[in-house]
């Protein structure tokens, strides 16, 4: 069981101390990323999904701190406790380039506009893999070709602004893939691009998974993206994981009221006007004035007094866990 995961996160809590306040952005989060699978992490804005990713990369802002818990990277030659590493130490930097890489929503923030795309890919090849300039350039061209960029021999010497939106995204993925990382963290990789381009990027990510046996952790707010790509799903709400399971379990047998409500408020293409959307009542609470116990109960249809206590984690199957007192009622009420 342990051997097939590449990353384990146990009881991770991350608090943010901006503006003289303490925001418990991530609380007691545990999950596993399985080798060769795509883990989808879904949640609305402010649910702590991006903070979790930053914690794994040790890229948290200065005023944020890992309070407790462990992040373990299962490398081929032993486990590495990422949370114990120094934020900017040489070990962490090595992990960031060679073991875990991250791609972002906006490729323009990840690509430096004053250097050519090829130069930026070659930099990391030269630095991490000690390649010569010639080797690095050949590899960069190869990478761009693999990511589906037409005429890479010419494109390698072009600047990011000469690329179109979809191609920038590909170039950023090429850069992330340069040193054959074990895990790719994609933070909202398709949120800023159009659906037809998004479909291209989906294709590319599935190719990475199938051909290179990449493990991908996909962070998004879009249930559609999850449904298309993910093998396993983690649902987050207000800093906690409320439900965790395989994609089929989440979509067909959602056991947490939040997951269920989330699925009911998205219009599904093809069902048109016949579908009845059920909005979740109320708004997401103020992170500085959180409800006691279950974070979702003020908006929940199943809420009882029991919900004032923090719910335990129940296992419905080996892969499917849920953090709700009333999951049985939710499951029965199909």
């Amino acid at each position, binding site marked *: 069981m342990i051997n097939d995961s590449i990353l384990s996160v146990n009881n991770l809590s991350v608090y943010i101390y901006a503006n003289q306040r303490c925001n418990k952005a991530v609380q007691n989060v545990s999950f596993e990323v399985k080798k060769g699978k795509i883990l989808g992490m879904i949640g*609305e*804005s402010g649910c702590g999904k991006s903070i979790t990713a930053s914690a794994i990369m040790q890229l948290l802002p200065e005023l944020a701190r890992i309070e407790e818990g462990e992040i373990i990277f299962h490398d081929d030659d032993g486990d590495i406790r990422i949370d114990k590493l120094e934020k900017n130490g040489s070990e962490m930097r090595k992990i960031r380039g060679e073991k875990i890489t991250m791609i972002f929503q906006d490729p323009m923030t990840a690509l430096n506009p004053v250097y050519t795309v090829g130069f930026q890919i070659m930099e990391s090849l030269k630095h991490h893999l000690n390649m010569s300039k010639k080797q690095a350039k050949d590899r960069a061209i190869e990478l761009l070709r693999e990511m589906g960029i037409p005429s890479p021999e010419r494109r390698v010497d072009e600047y990011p602004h000469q690329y*179109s*939106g*979809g*191609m920038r995204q590909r170039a950023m993925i090429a850069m992330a893939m340069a040193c054959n990382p074990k895990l790719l963290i994609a933070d909202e990789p398709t949120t800023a691009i*159009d*659906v*037809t*381009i*998004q*479909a*291209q990027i*989906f*294709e590319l990510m599935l190719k990475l998974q199938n051909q290179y046996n990449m493990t991908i952790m996909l962070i998004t*707010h*879009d*249930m*559609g*993206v*999850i*449904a*298309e790509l993910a093998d396993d799903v983690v649902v987050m709400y207000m800093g906690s994981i409320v439900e965790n399971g395989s*994609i*089929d379990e989440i*979509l*067909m047998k959602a056991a947490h009221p939040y997951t269920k*409500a*989330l*699925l009911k*408020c*998205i*219009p*599904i*293409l*093809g*069902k*048109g*006007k016949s*579908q009845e*959307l*059920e*909005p*979740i009542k109320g*708004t*997401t609470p103020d992170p500085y004035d959180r409800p006691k116990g279950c974070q979702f109960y003020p908006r929940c249809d199943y809420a009882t007094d029991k919900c004032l206590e923090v719910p335990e984690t129940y296992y419905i199957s080996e892969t499917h866990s849920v953090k709700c007192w009333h999951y049985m009622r939710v499951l029965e009420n199909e």
Partner: protein
Amino acid sequence: MNNSNNVLIKLRDVKIYFPIFKGVFKRAVGYVKAVNGVDLDIYQGETLGLVGESGSGKTTLGKGILQLLKISSGEVTYKFNGEEKNLKSLSDEEMFEARKRMQIVFQDPYSTLNPALTIFNQLQDPLKKFGVKSKSKRREILEHLLEEVNMPKESLNHYPNEFSGGQRQRIGIARALSLSPNFIVLDEATSALDVSIQAQVLKLLSSLKEERDLTYLFITHNLSVAEYFCDRIAVMYLGKIVEISTAEEIYNNPLHPYSKALISAIPVVDPQSKFDRKRIILEGDVPDPANPPSGCPFHPRCKEVMEECKYNIPELKKLLKNAKGHYVSCHLYKDEFTKK
């Protein structure tokens, strides 16, 4: 529904070009053809979805209809009290009247309200302009409007930073309603919201439509939302409308190769349908609107491209066999168009 008497807004060959300036003397060296010849009828009481990707010109067209952007050529007519009027040739008085009837709700909940003024202070000026002289009367009207969009009336005394995205969007809707318009452009009005909030706002918009007998132009890039919310959908590509039909028709029977690709590209939250769909992956990106391709604007990416598509610009024509009114601009269907 397709009775021509019911047309509220009629667009004929509307073009909106933005000049590109270059060089020391800032001469116009070309034009971005954001909207490049659009014919469109918006019927009284319908919700018309305008769907397209970024750069398709859908927002530009929406703002053009409201005269927020200058229309380069073509005409927009608007029906006042049963009389069609060209918006370009309105007198000041008529324009004043027209402003009351047409409003817009914007996309970004953070830029839609002025962070420096209280809600009351920024919402009262339109009322003041349109003749509500007493301050207490203005306050009363705004309180009423806020309650209509399910916001507490005390919100008037607060600053925008005290509200969440969904609440700001509601206030934006209240502002659009403040002069009782009958036509509202919803420019990606729910796109920036979380899905749970998006559903609330969509519900609110539908109930407002019922109560106030509104006509919506719903601009969005999200076809799933458009299909749920709209009566008819127009698909735009590179400044042109390539297909219009009812929402079900567009989904069940898309004709234009671009509409087909667009629909197949949308991720669907439905485990059953996940595997029996064939996805059409389009090559490349949307071309530069400053330099659109010759012939059909879609031909460089089209899977079913024919020789003719490279030279002839297809016209948006009605299909003969479909009584509900399915219009498409594609050479593939030239045998099926009615003869004029």
